[in-house]
């Protein structure tokens, strides 16, 4: 209902202000479009946000044709290259994340760290807010606990409205915190994406219990295309798993085949699909309230 109301507002603003539509719509969204996200909801259900400003890429240099990259924003037809436009050019401030990225470190209660310049080693943070997209991300730990960076999961989603006609793989992985395969009653401990999301929401994290699997486009918003191994702002997302082959699941199933889903290879920033039986890591997400 809220969504319909918002759509009406958007259309109204389009009619009234014409080309000024986006600034107006953005204000409306800030005022009215804070979608309620239900705890325990299955991944990918109707809580995908309607307004997702794109991050810039992080690419601040130009290239030549047919080969060669430069250190600065120079090169062939440079005005049309990536480095010439977007936040990397207009908001290049490294104090809140490399180039055009803007992040805020959050503590275990979900509050911003008072000193944002601390290192993870001295003052570990639990979550990161992306100030451009409005998404809040789970940060992995290296403590062998629920959020450990090395835990991997198969892709599993029992919601027929969002699973691409196949539930995926419930219990073929054993590499996660608390896994117990002894009785049928322990499916909540299984190493799959849905079970993990439910465990985190049951325990709470950063003061919230409305964590969900990101869509593939949300997950891709974390890719720093200006870097590889890993292709992420590692000053804010520490504890990379395995920089040579680090794949992270999204909640988005593949449209082209069943029992496959989208992942991002954070080694180099590629996005692609793979079988639900594959073991990959997870960065849960929620929307800023």
């Amino acid at each position: 209902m809220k969504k319909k109301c918002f759509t009406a507002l958007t259309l109204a603003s389009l009619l009234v202000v014409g080309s000024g539509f986006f600034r107006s719509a953005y204000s409306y969204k800030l005022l009215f479009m804070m979608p309620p996200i239900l705890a325990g909801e299955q991944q990918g259900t109707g809580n995908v946000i309607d307004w997702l400003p794109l991050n810039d890429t992080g690419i601040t240099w130009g290239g030549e044709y047919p080969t060669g990259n430069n250190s600065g924003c120079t090169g062939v037809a440079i005005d049309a290259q990536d480095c010439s436009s977007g936040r990397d050019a207009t908001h290049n401030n490294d104090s809140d994340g490399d180039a055009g990225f803007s992040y805020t470190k959050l503590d275990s209660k979900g509050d911003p760290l008072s000193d944002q310049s601390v290192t993870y080693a001295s003052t570990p943070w639990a979550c990161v807010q992306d100030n451009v997209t409005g998404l809040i991300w789970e940060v992995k730990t290296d403590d062998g606990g629920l959020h450990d960076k090395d835990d991997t999961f198969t892709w599993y989603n029992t919601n027929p409205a969002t699973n691409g006609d196949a539930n995926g793989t419930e219990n073929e992985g054993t590499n996660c915190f608390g896994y117990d395969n002894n009785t049928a009653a322990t499916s909540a401990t299984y190493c799959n994406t849905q079970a993990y999301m439910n465990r985190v929401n049951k325990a709470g994290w950063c003061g919230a219990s409305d964590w969900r699997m990101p869509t593939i486009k949300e997950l891709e918003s974390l890719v720093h295309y200006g870097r590889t191994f890993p292709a992420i702002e590692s000053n804010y997302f520490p504890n990379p798993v395995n920089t040579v082959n680090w794949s992270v699941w999204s909640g988005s199933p593949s449209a082209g085949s069943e029992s496959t889903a989208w992942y991002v290879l954070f080694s180099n920033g590629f996005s692609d699909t793979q079988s639900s039986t594959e073991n990959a890591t997870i960065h849960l997400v929620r929307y800023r309230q």
Partner: protein
Amino acid sequence: MPTFFILLCCIFSAATVQAAQTCKTDSIPASTPNSQLVDNGDGTVTDSKTGLMWKQCLEGISGTLCENNTLKKFTWEEALQRSGIANADNGFAGYTDWRLPNIRELRSLVEEQCSNPAINLDRFPNTPSLDSWSGSLFAHPSYPDSAWIVNFSKGNSSIKGRETTFVVRLVRSDQ
């Protein structure tokens, strides 16, 4: 939208332009529904989720169903230069700030519930299942001849050599 997709698929397969698109409309939420992509009626489409304005047709083709003229393919250098051509002589649809999309912008066009092609054919008619250039370079020093593309058959991103020729869709930031 499902009915429309089916209709479009019929039209296109009849015209043997491309194989039929398939969409899982009941089991995957649309990522670029018609309600999000506003047809401006002048050959441009505005994405209300990202704030980007796109040319409705790939470079080379035109018409309300992008059915006229011939689809062109470009090297990465030619793709970069294409925006300058589009912006000359009063530009396109009254805008002179068209540019090659970066990889994240290009990926934002992918319709996650469809494949072959993975795009909203209602708003971007006659889009083939081909690789499309972005203006983004690949960062790893072992690949100094590569740049990012989106494969619109499946919707995935990848890198290709800059001398390869692919199709181009131009974008502008709608401020």
